[in-house]
């Protein structure tokens, strides 16, 4: 590589990296916690999930209780289980019967508890798990249309750019520098060693996240417009049909059958038809009509097969299968790509152990971002640089580091405060979680930025986060009575996990925090850097 190429790549890596740093840190930090979204939600609501999948969901009782509050005839009603929690998402289309009363003429979306049949709208179903999950694609910044998603997608794209340029810059020393760690050297060398070594370890993981992240959040919005106008001549529905996201439509017979079928029978039939099938969605098309159909969708259990998408459609009256898409054979390219992107991004194909590995790699990526910011700072803290510029850089460093590192105590504080003070599942819940997280984060950012000391920020955010983190299992025990030794014996492993997870995290960060000592730069000799 010529000197010119090296320096240009280096510069583009630096500039793209420093611009996206804070946003990317927020995405990785919130995203890492989102691996445990379902466990966090079980913990927060004190609703352990024992049966995975649809478990013993009783569609007859769920539809009966839905019938009391909603008119259901002639609508397409779907029950979706996106996550392992007790509450299912319900989607109701408008009734196809044009003579129907007003209240069934619109679309509806809400959640229903499989066990208690209680329903919740979006805001009252809100949770810390949902909050962190949505924060990781910056949904809270959707002030203008989907501006937050667009920002998250742009960050992901430049992350991809920074990964490629970073790898190219580091290419020649990728092996030789991998084993170099000089804890006694100057700070700049420590940050560089950490940045490159951990960057190389996390490289496949980070590349996966850049690509899958772009794929999920903005890919279609960015690439589709020319494709729709040129390939499909404006017919966007045809494109979505090709990409496998079209909705089915069955005509309404406008007659009600004499007997209502047992709604659970379709799930049971599917389970015996494909024993290794994981049901994710059950749809009742034309509910309560003579021409009612039932669709059961899902994918193979990951232990059996990595990707695949399947569906059975039953005629509700006769109970016969009218259409079948086998998930175990002939997986199409479209389903294959979607499946691989989802599995790799969600990390849900290998149980809790794999999610812990993913979490650690996610936090390593956070560390790579922080060390990148610190290299940027140290490299520019030179005597020959104008005083004004140095001042600006220093303030930028203090605030960037404060924004990133205070996320840890702010998150821990949110867990404690929500557990202690927010009991009700009413629409206020969403606002309360927003306020608790964003105000505590804002205050911490201001305090630590104004302290103007990155060492202090590092040490005390870890210790503060650890103290708050240790309070999480205590708060849970006091409020719910489900202390972690009790949840263990009751086999509420998801709730147990969150308590133990926070204790582990708190103990590690506490030990690291109190052992941190300020380094006196002047006492250190500048070792000849291998990178020069």
């Amino acid at each position, binding site marked *: 590589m010529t000197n010119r190429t090296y320096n240009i790549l280096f510069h583009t890596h630096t500039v793209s990296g420093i611009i996206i740093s804070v946003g990317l840190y927020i995405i990785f930090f919130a995203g890492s916690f989102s691996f445990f979204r379902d466990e966090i939600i079980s913990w927060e609501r004190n609703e352990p999930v024992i049966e995975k999948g649809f478990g013993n969901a009783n569609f007859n009782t769920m539809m009966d209780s839905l019938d009391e509050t909603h008119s259901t005839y002639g609508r397409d009603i779907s029950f979706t289980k996106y996550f392992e929690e007790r509450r299912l998402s319900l989607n109701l289309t408008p009734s196809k019967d044009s003579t129907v009363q007003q209240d069934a003429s619109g679309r509806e979306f809400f959640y229903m508890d499989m066990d208690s049949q209680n329903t919740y709208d979006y805001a009252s179903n809100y949770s810390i798990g949902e909050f962190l999950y949505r924060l990781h694609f910056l949904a809270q910044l959707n002030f203008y249309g989907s501006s937050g998603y667009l920002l998250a997608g742009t960050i992901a794209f430049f992350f991809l750019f920074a990964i490629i340029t970073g790898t190219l810059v580091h290419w020649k020393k990728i092996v030789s520098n991998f084993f170099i760690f000089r804890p006694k050297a100057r700070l700049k060398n420590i940050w560089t060693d950490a940045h490159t070594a951990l960057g190389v370890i996390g490289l496949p993981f980070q590349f996966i996240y850049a690509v899958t992240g772009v794929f999920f959040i903005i890919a279609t919005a960015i690439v589709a417009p020319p494709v729709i106008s*040129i*390939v499909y001549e404006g017919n966007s529905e045809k494109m979505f049909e090709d990409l496998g996201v079209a909705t089915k439509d069955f005509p309404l017979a406008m007659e009600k059958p004499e007997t209502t079928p047992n709604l659970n029978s379709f799930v049971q039939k599917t389970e015996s038809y494909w024993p290794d099938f994981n049901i994710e969605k059950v749809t009742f098309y034309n509910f309560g009509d003579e021409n009612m159909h039932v669709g059961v969708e899902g994918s193979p259990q990951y232990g059996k097969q990595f990707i695949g998408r399947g569906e059975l459609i039953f005629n509700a009256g006769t109970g016969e299968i009218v259409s079948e898409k086998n998930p175990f054979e002939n997986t199409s390219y479209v389903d294959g790509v979607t499946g691989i992107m989802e599995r790799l991004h969600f990390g849900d194909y290998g149980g809790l152990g794999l999610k812990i590995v993913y979490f650690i790699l996610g936090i390593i990526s956070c560390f790579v971002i922080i060390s990148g910011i610190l290299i940027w700072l140290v490299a520019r803290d030179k005597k020959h640089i104008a005083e004004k510029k140095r001042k600006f850089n220093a303030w930028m460093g203090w605030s960037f580091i404060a924004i990133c590192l205070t996320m840890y105590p702010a998150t821990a504080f949110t867990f404690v405060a929500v557990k202690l003070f927010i009991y009700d599942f009413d629409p206020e819940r969403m606002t309360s979680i927003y306020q608790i997280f964003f105000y505590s984060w804002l205050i911490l950012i201001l305090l630590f930025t104004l302290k103007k000391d990155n060492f202090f920020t590092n040490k005390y955010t870890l210790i503060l986060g650890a103290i708050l983190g240790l309070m999480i299992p205590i708060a849970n025990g006091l409020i719910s009575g489900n202390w972690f030794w009790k949840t263990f014996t009751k086999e509420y492993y998801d709730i147990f996990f969150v308590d133990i997870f926070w204790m582990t995290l708190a103990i590690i960060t506490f030990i690291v925090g109190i052992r941190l000592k300020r380094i006196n730069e002047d006492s250190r000799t500048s070792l000849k850097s291998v990178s*020069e």
Partner: protein
Amino acid sequence: MPANKKYLTKSKSQRFAKISAGLIGGYLVMESLHIALAFWVNHVHVLMTLRFGGFILWSALLILAFLAENGWKIWAIYLLLTLLFSILIYFGKSYNPII
């Protein structure tokens, strides 16, 4: 350690040309290439690939634009490539129409 300034682009117009060539020109090349392919091989597969592979290609084109000696030249190259793919799209549309 910051990159040696002697190798970086100093002229404002050149910098603008390179950044715009990488972002806009790169996008045009990526889209036209995939749309052209869509008319000649299985279009559903190509469009699915575009949704992730397209971005890897785009970032590579962005890097190439930064490495170019002359920003306007790289603009010309990207526009020529787009033109070439557009011709393929034109013939693809008449010989293998999708709709």
